[in-house]
């Protein structure tokens, strides 16, 4: 069936499928900057209103907007044992993968491989998790930290050595080399 792609409909669907809260920059990106923050904010207010009285509500959290089930439904939802295992975002997982496979690396090295800036929050969360350490500093301007994974990381992943990680050479054969034109990055 054909549906009319209004901005509100797009915004609602994006918020429903996102696994993390979406902040204003992400929401602007959703509309390729064709919608201003003000318009988006007023759509968010409309959505908030549309969902009032439903089992799920649109809420603004510290890191952005997200749909969330209402507390009154908890007794029902508890019966389904729906507890979602928390997940690291793609940015965190890719950063961790690069540190694991390419160590020791600087933040700059990670940014070069990922092609985007790496926020300090990501590095910080991996340090707090106790999986990565600073093992030195690179002798270039700014003397950036050299990051490496440690024993705790291996322990937590159930590995004895880094060599037990899936080999990279095999991985490249699994990925479609196709340059998909429609695939916005």
């Amino acid at each position, binding site marked *: 069936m054909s549906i009319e792609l209004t901005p509100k409909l797009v915004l609602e669907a994006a918020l*429903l*499928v*996102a*696994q993390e809260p979406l902040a204003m920059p992400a929401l602007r990106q959703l509309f390729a900057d064709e919608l201003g923050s003000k318009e988006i904010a007023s759509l968010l207010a409309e959505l908030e209103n549309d969902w009032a009285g439903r089992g*799920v509500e649109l809420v603004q959290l510290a890191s952005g907007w997200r*749909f*969330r*089930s209402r507390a009154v439904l*908890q007794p029902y939802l508890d019966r389904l044992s*729906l*507890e*979602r*295992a*928390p*997940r*690291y975002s*793609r940015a965190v*997982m*890719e950063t*961790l*993968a*690069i540190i*694991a*496979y*390419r*160590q*020791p690396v600087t933040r700059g090295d990670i940014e*070069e*491989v*990922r*092609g985007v800036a790496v926020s300090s929050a990501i590095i910080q969360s991996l340090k707090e*998790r106790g999986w990565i*350490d600073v*093992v*030195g*500093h*690179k*002798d*270039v301007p700014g*003397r950036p930290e*050299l990051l*490496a994974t440690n024993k705790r990381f291996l322990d937590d*992943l*159930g590995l004895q050595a*880094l*060599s*037990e*990680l*899936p*080999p*990279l*050479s095999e*991985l*490249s054969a*699994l*990925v479609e080399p*196709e*340059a*998909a034109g429609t695939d916005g*990055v």
Partner: protein
Amino acid sequence: MSDVDAVGLPLAHVLGEPVHQLPADLYIPPDALRVLLESFEGPLDLLLYLIRRQNLDILDIPLASVTRQYMQYVDAMQSSRLELAAEYLLMAAVLIEIKSRLLLPKHEEYPDDGPDFEADDPRAELVRRLLEYEQIKQAAYALSQQPLVGRDFEFVAVLFEREMVLRLPEVGAADLRTAWQAILARARRNQHHQITPESLSVREQMSAILRVLQDGRPHEFTVLFDPVAGIPLLVVTFLAVLELVKEECIVVSQEDGFLPIYVRLVSASRSGGANEH
């Protein structure tokens, strides 16, 4: 040539660009050959290509010309000293065997494409395999066109917030694999980055050496090496030292010939005032 690849799959990807037709000329420069071979999924795929390319009826493969072309590819692989996949050589043997059996006198009463084709023609088994492969090739393509989660749609993921016990995300080796695959896939789309597999053990040793040197003091070169760890690890450790010097993370110094060699962090040599390179 529109029928070269009936299902429209690109034959190869050169620098990310799909290639739908191969050059008519059978000569392939050795560099291109590797790319070409990687674009075929195996000897059956290559053979199917050769047959389709000539617009031949698969039930009536002119063995002589197809075998000749196939052997040209195999020869090219050998002359450029590529590690020739055993499967390609095996297929060459099969082709030659079929050809030689075709040369033997036939029973006159059965025409070539008559009802007993299957039973009599030495090509029958090859045809069966080719058809079966072609069928799967098309199925694979159809499957890849099927709407797929994460590519064509997303599942809804509304938050269910229970009492806030801090639960840390679980991560497994497979998740790292997936993350790296995503990096690779993106890098291939963007072309600017070269992501090559690197020897993990050297990188691992580099981290280990940096950990030893963490206290900032110079350490004797020899303490980095554990003689009982075996020769491979000694070599890897040495490579790691060289790599760290190259990346300007450590300094290796020796006062004079035959005196002990010292290794220390670049940062330590900085703050200590001495900066030998």
